[in-house]
């Protein structure tokens, strides 16, 4: 798959993405059993290289790798040589020398994962776990997995599924990866945000753009709320938290406008009361906890494919 790395949702063909989802489904079924662990990646070393704090993504990858019996090393920038000014290159070469087979990288600089893959700094398989404001491809895979589970369980792809992605598109790696992957799988994506939080150039994306959540919410199957960073307010992307919440937040009124079968998603961590009200987050339509669960299965599938584990079923 994808020349040995997972850097962007754009690197996946439709078929490769569907294969990953079906591998994830098989793995999920196995790990739902009493013995959650598979021996497929025994002897392989997976490094979680996290330059930004992200407990949930890191433990999701860690769980995934451990369920496949890989050795996991967590390398977080804080308190390490990185905080003493070590360069990404030197860190990568150190991990190479220690024999990392895969590096899962979260970095604040867009393109950091791509740089690791393109340079000669390290030979390991690179998994992008979020690079700056660029992409977060495993999040898109787990979102696609969850949408399929709820809305297209009996079908191959996501043709006809109407997805709203609401919030800070400009700074969102989740939005970029989801636009690429979900449209590739046949979904129709609408981005809803104030114009300040949409990138210049967004009109070239294969999506519909709207500034008005109320006019879109009745006509969707999925509403995906993005986390809003409070510091955006200081930069005048919107006037106040309350105004943002009123215009772009998911609340009980808007929840009631959703179609009966629609689902509510959020990549987490949530700002309850800001982009999503507590009752919306905890509503029956909310699949946020399923997203977290599916994240482990999808990341198992990615590591499994990248590190060339033995075929599922041939292992015990």
């Amino acid at each position, binding site marked *: 798959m994808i020349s040995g790395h997972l850097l962007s949702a754009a690197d996946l063909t439709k078929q490769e993405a569907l294969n990953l989802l079906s591998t994830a489904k098989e793995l999920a079924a196995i790990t739902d059993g009493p013995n959650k662990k598979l021996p497929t990646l025994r002897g392989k070393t997976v490094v979680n290289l996290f330059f930004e704090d992200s407990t949930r993504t890191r433990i999701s990858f860690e769980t995934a790798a451990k369920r496949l019996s890989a050795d996991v090393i967590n390398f977080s920038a804080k308190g390490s040589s990185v905080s003493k000014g070590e*360069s990404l290159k030197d860190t990568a070469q150190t991990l190479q020398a220690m024999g990392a087979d895969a590096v899962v990288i979260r*970095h604040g*600089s867009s*393109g950091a994962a791509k*740089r690791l893959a393109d340079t000669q700094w390290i030979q390991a398989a690179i998994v992008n776990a979020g690079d700056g404001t660029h*992409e977060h491809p495993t999040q898109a895979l787990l979102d696609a997995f969850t949408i399929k589970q709820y809305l297209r369980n009996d079908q191959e792809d996501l043709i006809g599924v109407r997805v709203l992605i609401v919030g800070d598109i400009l700074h969102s790696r989740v939005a970029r990866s989801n636009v690429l992957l979900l449209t590739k799988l046949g979904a129709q994506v609408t981005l809803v945000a104030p114009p300040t939080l949409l*990138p*210049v150039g967004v009109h070239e994306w294969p999506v519909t753009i709207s500034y008005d959540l109320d006019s879109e919410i009745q006509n969707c199957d999925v509403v995906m709320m993005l986390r809003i960073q409070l510091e955006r307010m200081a930069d005048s992307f919107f006037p106040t938290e309350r105004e943002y919440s009123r215009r772009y937040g998911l609340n009980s009124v808007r929840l009631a406008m959703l179609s009966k079968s629609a689902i509510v998603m959020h990549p987490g961590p949530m700002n309850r009361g800001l982009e999503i009200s507590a009752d919306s987050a905890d509503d029956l339509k909310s699949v946020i906890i399923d997203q977290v669960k599916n994240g482990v299965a999808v990341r198992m599938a990615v590591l499994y494919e990248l590190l060339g584990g033995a075929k599922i079923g041939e292992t015990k």
Partner: protein
Amino acid sequence: MIKINNAKLSDNSLVDLEINNGVISKLSKSSGKQGDGIDATGKLLLPGLVDLHTHLREPGREDSETVLTGSQAAVAGGYTAISAMANTNPVADTAGVVEQIYRLGKEAGLCDVNPIGAVTKGLNGEQLAELGAMADSIARVRIFSDDGKCVADPLIMRRALEYVKTFNGVIAQHAQEPRLTINAQMNEGSVSARIGLPGWPAIAEEAIIARDILLAEHVQSRLHICHLTTAGGVELVRWAKQRGIQVTAEVTPHHLLLTDELVENYDPIYKVNPPLRTQKDVMALREGLAEGIIDIVATDHAPHPAEDKDCEWQAAAFGMVGLETAFSVVVKTMIESKLMSWTDLVDRMSTKPAQIAGYKQQGQLIAENTPANLILVDTGASWQVERNNLKSKSKNTPFNGMNLPGVISEVIYSGKLVLSNRLIVNGNHG
């Protein structure tokens, strides 16, 4: 004495010439015979090139470039005069610092090194530097620039424009509205949207150009726009020239050839400020240069050590080296495309820059009794850029591996052969 035989001039005539005491002492129609001089058969003889935008990094970052290594790179690129930007450490904002740079240039002895003075103290944009003292120093500074930073405060810009009228100075503006470019990494457009890098919008350049054109008109002073990059900027300068405003503009070779599509892989070799723009901008810049709306080509030669490019995009430094590739990139983009003639190239890379800066020994037509700052070019030949062969101390060229037309084989600076058969042969450092 140096003799050059059978050289072609840009008007296609063939000449022999003799150089004595720093000037062309004899210029005649070619006899067709080879004597004891340089055989220039098949080569074009042009005035030495003049750069108004060079970062030499000395004093302060001698690991990236020194006045000497920068002079060597200049000579290899066909330049007989360069202009050292003020953003050194310490900043070139006093007579002392500009005189130091001027003296280092004299010591190197390979080309004229003319310091540019800072507009404001420490490039801080708040208080004028001692512009008069720099103008009166032995370096005779006439160009002032905070390049790397924009003189963003309109009042400071106005005062600077007014003040330099005393000695016919010019303010060279790095046009970048700082508030519109906070943390900006690349051109804002479809590529930045896709790859998730904070955008540097064209408007941030154009807003300052528009403002400064109006200021220059109001106070009747001379404005020079550094590294113009946008189609909109070309239109603004065109409008200003039609109104008779004293504005000149430069374009870099990299902005004539490269676009923001190259940023797609996040290789910081393409990280530069102002950023690479779109193909539409590139075409507008080429047309603007051909038309003379953009007056000159300037390199914005910006050396950086390897570690500042061998990293992730956002950690990398802005800038590209350009002295050694500028001529060939202009040949490729402007001559091969038939947008410009050789005469135009001489105008944009030698005559006009010398006029803007007031470099009297430079940019003159090739005639008897004019200063002998000359280059010989094999126009039919091409060369492959190999970063490790660059004379510059830094190797951050975006053109590595490219095959470029036009080989500069000889350079004569102030009557002295400093480049012979592509090798540096003279100067004061052997």
